[in-house]
């Protein structure tokens, strides 16, 4: 109580200082927002806008993946399950909206997030007992299980053709028609930034810290009162929420979702994205996701063997820059700061961008 009032009085006196403090915290986010808003004005082609949309979606997805791998030390081979189920659930809601359901289209990603959370709770409960190989194998199994059910429950998954929806035939909070790709891009950017900020802040909470602790030394975590299983479970559920949200953004941008959304290739891509960028920093997966989407587009138009080059890139990163491209670059720049083996895992207050 007294802490709060003290903070308030301290803040009330020098208003200017307070403003500059905010600026110090917020500038990376403002910069990100500025870049996101400028890009579609520079690259105006339909192809570029599509790519930008996909990047935003992949960034959220990769960040959610890094909540598991980077922050908690859980290697998942089935993270697309939550992305895809979030996408399918929100697609059903979108279709209901097309039929007249009076839910604003802007909130669709939130629906997807809660769908991801729901399945995260169910599947997380059976996954987090052990980290390491056991967790990885269970995630692989769950991924296959859900992908296989997409062929069995064609009512929900829409069979081979998938499901379609129409984003401009829905209610909007602001009366906007999201028909054009570039219009929906701005909505996606808002959600992506909100999600990224939330995931960034989560790293600074008791749960975020203990996730790092459990990753590094689950035994010691137990002897300071924490159940590693529960820490992993909560992280898993939150990560599934954001994966689901990314799935919702996917539905908004694509207006179609097929079984690929829950498939192993999607799970693999998000792993590659996070790893290529670097799982030790917050911005690593952002960088990785951007690069992977870009390469997917540019390489696939140049050569049919793009998967080959992509695989080579991944192997090079694993062998020569295990901290990822962004992580390694950061390490080079921050040579003055003591860095131990891997990058500081960034659970302290100073943002490890």
């Amino acid at each position: 109580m007294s802490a709060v009032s003290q903070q308030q009085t301290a803040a009330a006196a020098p208003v200017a200082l307070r403003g500059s403090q905010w600026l110090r915290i917020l500038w990376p986010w403002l910069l990100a927002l500025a870049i996101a808003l400028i890009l579609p004005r520079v690259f105006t082609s339909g192809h570029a806008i599509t790519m930008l949309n996909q990047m935003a979606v992949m960034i959220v997805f990769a960040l959610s993946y890094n909540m598991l791998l980077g922050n908690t030390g859980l290697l998942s081979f089935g993270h697309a399950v939550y992305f895809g189920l979030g996408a399918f659930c929100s697609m059903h809601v979108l279709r209901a909206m097309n039929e007249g359901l009076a839910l604003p289209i802007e909130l669709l990603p939130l629906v997807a997030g809660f769908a991801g959370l729901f399945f995260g709770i169910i599947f997380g409960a059976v996954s987090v007992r052990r980290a390491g190989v056991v967790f990885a194998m269970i995630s692989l199994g769950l991924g296959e299980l859900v992908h296989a059910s997409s062929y069995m429950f064609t009512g929900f998954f829409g069979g081979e053709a998938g499901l379609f929806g129409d984003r401009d035939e829905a209610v909007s909070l602001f009366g906007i028609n999201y028909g054009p790709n570039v219009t929906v891009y701005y909505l996606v950017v808002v959600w992506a930034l909100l999600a990224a900020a939330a995931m960034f802040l989560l790293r600074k909470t008791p749960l975020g810290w203990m996730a790092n602790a459990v990753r590094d030394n689950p035994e010691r975590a137990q002897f300071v009162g924490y159940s590693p299983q529960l820490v992993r479970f909560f992280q898993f559920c939150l990560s599934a929420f954001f994966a689901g949200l990314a799935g919702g953004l996917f539905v908004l941008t694509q207006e179609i979702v097929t079984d690929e959304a829950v498939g192993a290739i999607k799970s693999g891509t998000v792993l590659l994205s996070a790893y290529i960028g670097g799982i030790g920093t917050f911005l690593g997966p952002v960088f990785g996701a951007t690069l992977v989407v870009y390469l997917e587009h540019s390489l696939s138009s140049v050569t049919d063997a793009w998967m080959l080059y992509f695989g080579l890139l991944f192997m090079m990163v694993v062998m020569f820059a295990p901290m990822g491209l962004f992580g390694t670059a950061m390490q080079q720049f921050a040579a003055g700061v003591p860095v131990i083996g891997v990058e500081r895992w960034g659970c302290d207050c100073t943002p490890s961008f």
Partner: protein
Amino acid sequence: MSESVALSLKGVKKNFGRAEIIRGVDLDVAKNERHVLIGPNGAGKSTLFNLISGRLQVSAGSVDLFGETISGKSPHMINRQGLSRSFQVTNLFQNMTVMENLRCSLLWSMGHKYAFWKFVTKQREVTERAEELLERLRLTARRDVPAGLLTYAEQRALEIGATMASGAKVLLLDEPTAGMSRTEADEVMELIREVTTDCTLLMVEHDLGVVFGVADRISVLVYGEVLASDTPEAVRANAAVQEAYLGKEVH
């Protein structure tokens, strides 16, 4: 049983496969007592600590903490009931700084649990308590150094600090001064004496000079059995103990 017993072991046994390492240990540690466990290498002292703290499961017998059975519970549940332990081999969050290690050790006991709606560094009480601990451990200058880069003695100090951070009512310290120089060991023992004025201490220690200085009672563990459990004077005078342990081990 009596109100005054903090920790009570009854017929505790532990086998690793066919090897019987702890062979029926009965031991009572009174509240606010400083109890030292001595014994030759391989006697099973660390194993006994692992059994008490839930790191290992007992094969037979039971362990009670303030009259409640804790054997069979998981380590974090035992910790929450007020028992905290250090490790013979330093066991810290190596990638985290000294301050981060202390904060992590404080979070649960200060009620923050799995919260994901508040910031760790904004918790003033946690920060203050951690800074006070830093001071006591003489690690203030090393506050932002990752635990893995500390000197051995500093790591040991942090290990003890992280153990007592939570303000547990019962502390188990496994060879807190192992590998330290004389002066370092004295400093650590001084610290331990300071912080255990109102809690119960069970400690493994090899340095007999240290042992007789700090102990209210001493138990001697040899081949998984308690040979004697008595005041320092009585243990020193005990013929069986002298033969089995003191006679050979006094440096």
